[in-house]
């Protein structure tokens, strides 16, 4: 059994303690807030100058001056603040965020991240990805374990252009939770019923299985959403 995209987001949410200040990338990372426990106060940062992004605005209730970094119309939570781009990147570059969660094209065994330019992509765009990858303390990757073509996205060495070297701390996929440590990748958790060897088989770099490697604590369903398939 493997996690759905929602399941990955659920698992990531469990790693964010109260008081976290978190920047979220597009895709799976953007789904994390739906799974944050309402008794944990956590502030979501958006590059365009918001601290305290809330859920997407309901249809008809969009505020023309409130979008997130993905340009979607969002709401703001109580206690949210707004600021200019200088302050927003002071927050990022100055290391003030506690976490960032981003997608990846590839992650290498040494923590190198490639997520800004697909092979063959003709028009490049980087946005705030490099500032985040170079400067946020706890950089978490949330992604499917393998590509659409079934190829490992966790690799010995990235072939796509790097976003930043040695930056990823932890990888959350539909199969596993993997830490990037000085000696290499450490398998910490596996999806329910998945053997470490099966994770290794879909991974392009050697995994050391942690002594306390365990099954992820993710329910099959949450609020009617399927988390495990």
């Amino acid at each position, binding site marked *: 059994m493997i996690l759905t995209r929602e399941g990955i987001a659920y698992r990531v949410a469990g790693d964010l303690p109260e008081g976290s200040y978190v920047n979220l990338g597009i895709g799976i990372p953007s789904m994390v807030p739906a799974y944050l426990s309402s008794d944990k106060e956590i502030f979501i940062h*958006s*590059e*365009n*100058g*918001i601290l305290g992004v809330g859920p997407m*605005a309901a*249809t008809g209730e*969009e*505020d*023309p*001056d*409130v*979008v997130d970094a993905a*340009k979607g*119309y969002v709401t*703001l939570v109580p206690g949210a603040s*707004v*600021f*200019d*781009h*200088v302050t*927003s*990147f002071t927050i*990022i*570059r100055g290391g003030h965020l506690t976490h960032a969660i981003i997608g990846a094209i590839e992650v290498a065994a040494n923590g190198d991240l490639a997520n800004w330019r697909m092979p063959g992509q*003709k*028009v*490049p*765009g*980087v*946005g*705030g*990805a*490099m*500032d985040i990858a*170079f*400067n946020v303390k706890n950089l978490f990757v949330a992604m499917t374990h393998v590509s659409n073509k079934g190829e490992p996205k966790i690799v010995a060495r990235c072939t796509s*252009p*790097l*976003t*930043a*070297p040695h930056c990823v701390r932890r990888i959350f996929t539909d199969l596993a939770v993997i830490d990037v440590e000085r000696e290499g990748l450490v398998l910490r958790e596996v999806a329910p019923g998945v053997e470490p060897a099966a994770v290794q088989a879909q991974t392009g770099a050697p995994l050391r299985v942690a002594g306390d490697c365990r099954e992820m604590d993710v329910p099959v369903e949450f609020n009617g959403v399927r988390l495990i398939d």
Partner: protein
Amino acid sequence: MIDKTVANCGEAVAQVFDGASIMFGGFGNPGVPANLIEAIRRQGTTNLVAIHNGAGIGDFALGGLFQDGRIRKLTASFPINPGSWAFRERYLKGDVELELVPQGTLVERIRAAGAGLGGFYTPTGPGTELAAGKEVRIFNGREYVLEMPLDADFALIKAYRGDRLGNLSYRKAMRNFNPIMATAAKVVIVEVEELVAVGSLSMEEIHTPGIFVDHIVQINRDPRLFDPQKERSAS
């Protein structure tokens, strides 16, 4: 009496010349000076160098300038919004040069120009292709890239409220690049939704002091800038 107000957008941008470099405020739609940009489009100014986070959306404002072939170079961090098809077409045809800059470096380069700095070392970029050919220097064991100031002939920005002195206040997330671009261009032109009397902006809510502003014009919010349903179906 100082009076920086002008009657309409056409007058506000009349001095923008062919070949000018222009900073355009805004991120997504919020804070985009769409009325000023449309006025530039109407007056036919061309051969422009644009500085903006993205590359415009749709066939309107900055997107429209790309569609009309008025821009020869873009400095941006994220010109790949699905709505930026006008830029995309021009770029793939080779009509537009692109200088791609990480978003934090883009804003810091603009700030350096506005604050009179000669350059700065940022930790963002070493070892990536966006730092290729740039000076890398180690401070306290960490690598930094030397980045240079980025200024422009004009900055076109948008604010929520403003007065005849050029004092500006922004609403929520429309602030983004606007205040810093206001510091970094020779001539700063602002569109505001409300022109108010001097003294009616709370002193603590003035985000851009008037010293940075040259011309200010009151506009109506263009409905093409806010159509969540259409935007939703397009993406």
